């Protein structure tokens, strides 16, 4: 029904996000097929950023549902604010109509995406945190594009089918029916070449020298063995930011094998100890 509008809207990338062609195409196909796109990949590969980038480039509003382990599906759909209603009925000092339950229904994130007047991007972040019941029920809702509000016996239908991006860190395997209803992409960790472009997007004025040496050092450190949480894009960017902020830092320190601010890159104490050890060995 929004066919023409959709085919016209093509996703090509956004100002702060470096996109490879393959991913752009997958995003476009998922939009055209009206299927949720499930993105998996290590932390720091830009899964969440992608949704922001799509919203930016298509000029759509972004609604983010941060999934938590304790979350129930209904929380994502709507909330019936009983407490306010109770208070209203006791004190009677608001202008809401206590007998009208609808006034106490608040839309959750999925609900907001459904009732929005224009098409939105709905990011369901870290779906793997929730239990599998939540996941399956949610997919039902997203399939049907409608849900019922039991308290007032009303069905909410999506005015426009949102562009749905789901991310997962793969802590748990998602169920087969869930996977069956999504398109899937796995974002691999960026290759050094790609990483250069990513860093350049964040630091347009960075010198080629600093860029070269930080990236070389970064990939070397990612190769340290026995490290549980490898530094990712986010750590690299923060690290470069730290290096640039330090007036005493010079690029030639990196060449010598001095790695300042190791703690920005390795955030777990056993990892930090291993890294410090390895770095001191590199220097020799």
């Amino acid at each position, binding site marked *: 029904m929004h066919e023409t509008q959709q085919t016209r809207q093509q996703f090509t990338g956004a100002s702060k996000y470096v996109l490879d062609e393959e991913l752009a195409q997958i995003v476009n196909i998922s939009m055209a097929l009206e299927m949720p796109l499930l993105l998996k990949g290590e932390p720091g590969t830009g899964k969440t950023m992608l949704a922001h980038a799509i919203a930016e480039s298509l000029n759509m509003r972004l609604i983010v549902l941060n999934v938590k382990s304790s979350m129930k599906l209904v929380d994502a759909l709507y909330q019936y604010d009983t407490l306010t209603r109770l208070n209203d009925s006791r004190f009677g000092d608001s202008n809401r109509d206590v007998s009208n339950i609808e006034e106490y229904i608040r839309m959750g994130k999925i609900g907001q995406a459904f009732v929005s007047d224009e098409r939105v991007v709905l990011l369901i972040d870290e779906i793997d945190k929730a239990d599998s019941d939540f996941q399956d029920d949610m997919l039902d809702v997203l399939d049907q594009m409608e849900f019922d509000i039991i308290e007032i016996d009303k069905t909410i239908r999506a005015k426009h089918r949102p562009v749905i991006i789901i991310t997962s860190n793969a802590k748990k395997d998602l169920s087969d029916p869930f996977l069956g209803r999504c398109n899937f992409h796995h974002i691999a960790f*960026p290759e050094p070449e790609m990483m250069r472009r990513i860093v350049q997007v964040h630091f347009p004025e960075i010198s080629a020298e600093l860029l070269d040496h930080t990236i070389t050092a970064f990939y070397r450190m990612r190769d340290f063995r026995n490290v549980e949480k490898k530094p990712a894009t986010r750590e690299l960017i923060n690290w470069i930011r730290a290096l640039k902020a330090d007036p005493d830092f010079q690029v030639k320190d990196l060449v010598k094998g001095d790695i300042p601010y190791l703690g920005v890159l390795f955030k777990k104490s056993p990892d930090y100890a291993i890294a410090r050890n390895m770095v001191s060995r590199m220097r020799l």
Partner: protein
Amino acid sequence: MFTDFFYLLKDVGIPVSPTSFLRLQRALSMGLILSLDDFYTAARSILVKSERYFDLYDQAFAHHFKGAELKDPEAFELTEVAKAMLEQWLKNPKEMSELLGVDEESLKKLTPEQLIEYFLERLKEQTEEHHGGNKWIGTGGTSPVGHSGYHPGGMRVGGVSRNKSAVKVAMDRRYRDYSQMGPLTQAQMGEALKRLRNMVPVGPMDEVNIDKTIYQTMKNAGEIEIVFDRSLRDRLKVYLAIDNGGWSMDPYIEVVQTLFNYARAQFKDLKTFFFHNTIYDYVWEDPARFRKPLRVDDLIGHDPETRFIIVGDASMAPYELMATDGSIHIEERTTKPSFERLRDIAEAFPHSVWLNPKMEVEWEYTRTIGAIREIFPMFELSLDGLEKAVSHLMKKN
């Protein structure tokens, strides 16, 4: 359209569903897919639902659209790389021989075929020695072979560049690392750790949480809602026995130890023991198997709820397992044949598994593996195997 391809994917073991195939047809009929490149990406994102199967998909794709042989992965890569090395050698023999650390003259005498053979040998050596992923055929190193170093036959080994056809991308097999086949490597550590996270006991939801119940009831405006919590269970004790004798086990010892040490916090107690080939009267707490022996008879008295995990290739001469005095170490005199010892352990610890870095297909060729499998449930030391082993260890009975 592309029905053959669909069945090929099914045949190679990718779980593809007819629904998703129909969806692919829809994408085709909507005119979204205009080239083979588009098809590669679209079909993968629609049909394949886990990165574990991306590698298989790449192989199947290359096979179907290019006729590339579906080869045993190891052989495929080695020949490609060896060819690349030959080309490099032809271009610059000096540099190549320096990198290999051999005399240029001695290599010059070889015919191209002999050279390929020679390179293959060298590569095999290298892969064996550096299974944990060091720099020889690695990424970004100074080695002439591999990613960012040299492009064999005009194609890169890995990388993001998309200035090439989908078939070539597929042939690159960028997703090899995510494939679940093959023994556990350092690179898969994170994933493996997630498998271990399931080793926590779960009680039923049968304890009333008074605070939450009051809160929920208030929230429901007085409508009583009782909230249940899981009853707490004690964390597990884990004993890890590692075969650290012999070079065949070397690549895995570190992986396994790091793995369990990282998971340590979730266990009540984690002890590591060492043995060589199989267990006789003693296991050792020190890797040198010298200073701290522990009698197996003492071990057997420990808490039977302990999870006992043995890591070893279970490959040895049959007498080592069956004979009363089977140990190959002259100073180790034993009173019972090893297989009886193993049986004692299996009885004392009902929750026990044997993890074998040898892949399951090879098991039937070694007699001792068969014998030990009768005593312990055996699983591959791979992501899949680990997952199965954990679920076996967590079974109620």
